[in-house]
């Protein structure tokens, strides 16, 4: 009974009772969101160890209580260049595909409940060739872009073929 209270609340307003609880965060003036279930923890910026010749959006690796994880710069991922990280920047630690990864963002804003029916499919934009955005949610005046985390970290560990090609 008690577990369903939250859903009931929505189900009175919406025929589809399912709700997604989303963590929203900011990069510049843009708002992004991911499901709260994927977030392991949120921690302040910490110096990372760069990896040799990694993709630009891979900031490096970090020690999270004995576990080494890579930190991805979301600003770089969306094409806005490197984040000039300071103590106020935030790393969102997420679980994705059996891996733990860090997402460098400017700040974490909120946790909101969004009815599943309110999630719109991402517009088929040519610029989003990596498919980083899984859906859009209109929240007050903000458009929250729901991130496909797998796409964000995708090109990290794999060496791009351009680098290994040897011009003769």
């Amino acid at each position, binding site marked *: 009974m008690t577990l369903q209270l939250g859903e009931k609340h929505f189900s009175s307003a919406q025929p589809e009772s399912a709700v997604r609880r989303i963590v929203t965060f900011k990069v510049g003036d843009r708002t992004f969101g991911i499901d709260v279930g994927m977030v392991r923890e949120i921690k302040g910026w910490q110096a990372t160890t760069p990896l040799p010749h990694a993709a630009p959006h891979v900031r490096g690796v970090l020690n999270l209580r004995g576990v*080494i994880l890579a930190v991805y710069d979301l600003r770089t991922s969306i094409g806005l260049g*490197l984040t000039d990280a300071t103590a106020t920047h935030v790393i969102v630690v997420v679980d994705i595909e059996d891996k733990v990864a860090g997402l460098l963002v400017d700040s974490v804003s909120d946790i909101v409940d969004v009815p599943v029916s309110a999630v719109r499919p991402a517009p088929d934009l040519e610029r989003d060739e990596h498919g980083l955005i899984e859906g859009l949610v209109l929240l007050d005046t903000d458009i929250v872009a729901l991130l496909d985390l797998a796409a964000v970290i995708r090109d990290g560990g*794999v060496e791009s073929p351009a*680098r290994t090609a040897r011009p003769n």
Partner: protein
Amino acid sequence: MDPLAELKQTFFQECEELLGALELKLQALDEGSTDSEDVNAAFRAIHSIKGGAGAFGCTELVAFAHVFEASLDHLRSGRVAIADAPFSLFLRCSDAVADLVSAARNDEPARPRPDLLEALERVGQADAPKPAIAAPEAVKPAPAKAGAVQPEAAKPAAKKAAPKPAPASADDAPPGLAALGNLLAMVEAKAGGAPVAADDGWDDTPAVSTPPLKPGNDIRLSIRPDSDLFRRVIEPRAVFAILPAEDIVSITCDLSHVPPLETIDVTDCWMRFTVLLRTQMSVEEVYGKFDFTLSSEEFEVELLASAAKDDASTVFEAEPAPSADVSEVSQDVAADLSAILARLGPAPAAAGEPDIAPAAPAAPSPAIARQAPRPPANDAVAARQRQAVSVRVDLERIDKLMNLVGEIVITQSMLVECVRSLPYDIYAKTAEGILTLSRQTRELQDHVMAVRAQPVKAVFQRMPRLVRELAQTLGKEVRLVLEGENTEVDKTIIEELADPLTHMIRNSMDHGLETPEDRLAAGKPPEGVIKLVAEHRAGRIVISVTDDGRGIGREKLLAKAKSRGLVGADEKLAPEEIDQLIFAAGLSTAEVISDVSGRGVGMDVVRRNVESLGGRISVDSEPGRGCKFTLALPLTLAVLEGMVIRCGDDRYVIPIASVIETQHLASTPIEHLTFGQEVLRWRGEVTPLHRLGAVMGSTGTPNENIIIIAETERGDNVGIAVDEIVGQQQVVVKSLEGNYGTVNGASAATILGDGLVALILDVDSMLRLAASSERSPAPVLKMAG
């Protein structure tokens, strides 16, 4: 993972252990042991595998295991003498079971082995009379070689025991069994009242008039708990609840030991229980059930002799449970019975389970006594106690523990830094505490490492099978000698050992050992010996594979090396140097590409594998006398002795194992070749030089001062220019693959004292990186760390 899958996983893990045990025991028996405990252990192993396989629906496995079990049972029951048993067949069957298990594990279709099944079914068929097959455990004739003399010995005993003429059907049974049948009639008569029904006593089918009790073993369980039973928070009812209710015939409580009310301490337990069971479970299974709650002195499980008969419920009926007198009577009877059985055959009634029925008088079988100086019962008890104190732990949990210890080490080194800034009087005291802490953390780390340590047995156990199979393929006679199987190394190393060992043994079997004819011609015994030895030496594990074969064919090897251009045509090499060529890539001296060699997996691959583990391999050969490969490996992959170096703002760790020496850049002559490639002259050689900061894309401004001369996998040297050597320390190796992926130039990472991550350099991978990045411009985008 869902619970069933998890259970299944556990089952397969257990299977591996059981298969190891099975093989070990069969091997021991094959080599001449006549210890009946070995037979029992082998039987139990296959029985357990069958049981588990049944639970998980592995039908093929169950079917095979069943036949295998049945033929082993012939041995256990003595219908087939140990000396005559086809152990080579059994060993092949054990391999087949291993195949079936791995097929079941990987959900692959199992390969049926009708040939083996047929052979198994033939075991014991020739001389096993039908009634004997139905004979339950309690009346098994003595095992081993004694079996042959038994009928003669048994006959007079039977007459003695049974003055009455034996009933008709008993005549068909072997004489020993006939005697028992009569004996049972006596038991029943003595136990009181029940009609002597010996004429159907040996019938396979239960008599129509059988009372509702289902067939099974009649087991008496005597529980004499220590007086502190209640204080151990054990409730007798809970103890009995372990047993299936339908199996319990009666529970009797003996209160005669309860002291008078005025002196009693109510927290003491003075009750004793006798439970009679009619159950499908074996004595061992019942024993196993109580082994958890009660100590072995507190209870006793006896297979009642009357269980030999299917309709022997008369014993239970005749035994008015609550009466202590009657139980005394039946104990007398049991004693009589055992005494007579002792005369009947050389083994006591319950020879199958000497450890479980300690009450049975020990009349040692001559065969057993010769082989086993210690009483087998004690051995078994000791083994059980050893098992009881070990725990199966998920490696992941230990990894977490390891992580935590690593964290503590880091925190502690952080504390050391903080403390330095304290005023002296406070500092002195704190420093002392931190010193103690660091000693304790080091100890903690050692102990966690010890938890991860495992005997190399896990890998060694796989080798006999390999040798057997190869011997068959190659037509060679080989004896494999294992030594130091209990030498412990970290689990991570154990997993990596299997491949190199397999190749080394393959190599010895194929190239080293000669065929029996050649050996005889060379004045050697036809059977070759391969020795696999493990030992600890100076913080490493040293494993050697020694064969007494023909040794390395130096001329052939050298000729081959010269034809490949690995050695100059006119070059003179010392014999030892020639031997080392065996590790060179692409050199196979096998004339014929066989099943065993010529698959492109040579000793060069072994060397590469070993070196990637931070180990070394060497060879020692004496022509005509044999060859010895020695493998030295670190005890763990979780910790590595490393040199911390700095380039610009970044620090790296280079494994000490790959460092040959260090020197100042300023004092080293450097030559510039084309495209910025630098070389340095070192010990009369020209050695390529790489600037680490540039190769790895370090941040900050590099200011190279030091050259580290490192060794590559191929044995070449390379110079690596770095800014500074920060220090040398043990580092905990952390995987990069787990959460990221492979990183070129680095094999793993570690966490340094300040909590930051440093990459652990992999020299060869770094060189590959250097080769690729020097020819193409490095990415323009640099990270601001």
